[in-house]
């Protein structure tokens, strides 16, 4: 029987990350749980232990309830938008005879752009007296209140984030395209498959690992939306774009309810974890059932 040996060097090399994890993840996590059980605002000298009151209040709060549903509405709008647009970009880049890298970098640049700046530009573009709206009003009689109507506000924010992430996900999908063996297409051509059959029966199934990655990443993004909402709508109108991050920010830094905000953050983490786990499982099962993985 082999005797287990203590590997000091291994622990030593891992120690910087372990210390980092303990200081910046484990301790704050425990601290956050503790904070969520109190009514502390972080600055008062005295505070009370209120058990699960913050959690009970949070689940009854319209802002938190809105954050729960708004996240899934964002997901429903953002994920198809970003997957389709990144797929199109990847297909176009993949088909280019040269300068693929250059074009990919170009599409990737919005990912590096400041969310604040892009939001302010969009705000200007969609303002009542912008050229777009003047044309829409004068030529088509359309007077759209982009950021003050629940549906359009949500779609505008989803579109900005989709624009930001399209290049990033296209990079992953292009790598997926490049990894598909060209001989398969040659064989299919000999068998006389049509262009649509080739895309849906060959390309998409073989691209599934890359698509799976982008799907999971984009679903994760839906749970962390903040900057664009903060800049454009402030969570409105009437909570229509109130995300988890907005709710946590408002409670922690505007209303100074740190304990309550911690409870909301914990609820948000649990919802995010469970949702991503379930969606991942569904995608895996679906992929296996259709023979894509």
């Amino acid at each position, binding site marked *: 029987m082999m005797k287990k040996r203590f590997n000091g*060097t291994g622990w030593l090399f891992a120690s910087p990350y372990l210390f980092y994890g303990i*200081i910046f993840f484990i301790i704050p996590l425990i601290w956050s749980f503790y904070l969520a059980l109190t009514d502390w605002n972080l600055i*008062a000298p005295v505070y009370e232990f209120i058990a699960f009151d913050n959690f009970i209040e949070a689940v009854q709060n319209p802002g938190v309830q809105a954050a729960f549903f708004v996240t899934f509405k964002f997901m429903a709008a953002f994920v198809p938008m970003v997957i389709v647009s990144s797929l199109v970009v990847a297909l176009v880049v993949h088909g280019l005879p040269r300068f693929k890298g250059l074009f990919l970098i170009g599409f990737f640049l919005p990912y590096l752009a400041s969310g604040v700046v892009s939001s302010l530009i969009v705000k200007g573009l969609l303002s009542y007296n912008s050229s777009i709206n003047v044309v829409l009003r004068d030529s088509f009689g359309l007077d759209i209140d982009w*950021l003050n109507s629940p549906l359009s506000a949500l779609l505008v924010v989803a579109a900005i984030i989709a624009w930001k992430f399209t290049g990033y996900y296209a990079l992953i999908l292009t790598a997926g395209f490049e990894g598909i063996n060209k001989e398969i297409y040659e064989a299919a051509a000999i068998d006389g498959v049509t262009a649509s059959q080739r895309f849906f029966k060959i390309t998409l199934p073989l691209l599934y690992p890359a698509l799976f990655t982008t799907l999971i990443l984009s679903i994760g993004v839906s749970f962390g939306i903040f900057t664009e909402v903060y800049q454009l709508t402030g969570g409105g*109108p*009437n909570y229509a774009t109130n995300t988890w991050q907005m709710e946590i920010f408002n409670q922690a830094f505007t209303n*100074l309810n740190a304990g309550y905000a911690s409870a909301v953050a914990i609820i948000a983490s649990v919802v995010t974890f469970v949702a991503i786990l379930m969606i991942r499982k569904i995608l895996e099962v679906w992929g296996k059932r259709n023979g894509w993985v």
Partner: protein
Amino acid sequence: MKMKKTSLFLSTSILAAALAGCSTGQGSGSEDGVTTIEFWAAPNPTQQVYWEEMAEAFEKENEDIKVEVSPMKESPTSEAGIQTAIAGKSAPTMSENINRGFAAQLAESKALVPLNEIEGFDELLQNRSMEETIKTWKFADDNQYVMPIYSNPMLFGWRIDVLKEAGVEEVPKTYSEMLEAADKLKEKFPDKYIWAKADLADPTAWKRWFDFFMLYDAASGGNNFIEGDQFVADDAAGIEVLQLMDDLREKDALLTKQATDPFESGLGVFTDIGPWTFSYWEEKFPEMVYGETFDLALPPVPDDVSTENVNTFADTKGIVVYASATEEERAAAMEFMNFVYSDPENDLTWLETTKLPPARDDLSSNEAFASFFEENPELKPYADAIPNAIPSIDNAKYNELQTHIGSMAVNPVVEGTISPEDGWEEMKRAIEGELKK
């Protein structure tokens, strides 16, 4: 073995560096008979330079006190920066840029020193001639937690050039005059609005200072909105303010869609204006000329309210001393404030640098400021209105309370989804519920 030692050294160094990065680097304290106080200036270069100059001048006359000026951290907001600094035991001795509502939050958490308990505060009020102005700053517990630096009585700007074209010769002073102006404006310019302001449909708490509270303070004669934990607002005045918004909406004279520079472009002819606007206009909209394209006025009032001595909201911020400061640091902070505010020239420098009116009773009468107002006539109405300016409510829950004003009353009224009376009642119920929590 050598490799293990190297790894140990490396990981220890990384950890030490990481922990050093967490250091607060707090600068206040007493050493060698010199008391060092840390002063956080507002996060803009203009104010930071002003306070650095003041600190330098003060240190020349007070060798036993050192004032370290640094910009307030905005992570992600200046309020959040202060909150985390207090929580992390790295709060400065004192800071500026504190509004009354945030001061109330801090005071409720015992994070501030009542300035009236520090020796030299009464002398400071006398020296700066602000005994009247400071009265409206008293908190519900009878203490003074904030030393107001500036007081911007918010005024409304009117596009007099557009109004004249529409046949309105005088700036409206009452609600009926305003509604009459709306009729004339819409008749001449169907695409223009009296009030084009997207914030009216936004529940964000601070936005109510620049619409609802300006009108409410005027309509109610400066009647308090909240006193301690009691809702004491003038119901009739509040409903009249909402009725005005509703009437403008019905006349299609209110635009709540997001528009770029609506007042400057003439899309709207009425907007709230602070003194900070003029330097921005000088650069970006030189065509905006006081007395030619726009005029400034106190808020319009209901027809049965006098148009003399009208009250308005005061956008004011001031200095606080944090409770973590030692007795020596508190005394040094008061000495520094006395040094700065005992000489009107320092307030004049402030006024010239920031264009924000110092919170003094004698701003419009003191000779020291006369030449400044001659050169900047558009700022004179602000100085004149200081005695009638009402600062924000001093309740620690001001954010929640003012959000209710927006979400329950102002927002639905301007959207036409609730009547002014019902909106007021809904808001009142929500505020009273919040105050009981």
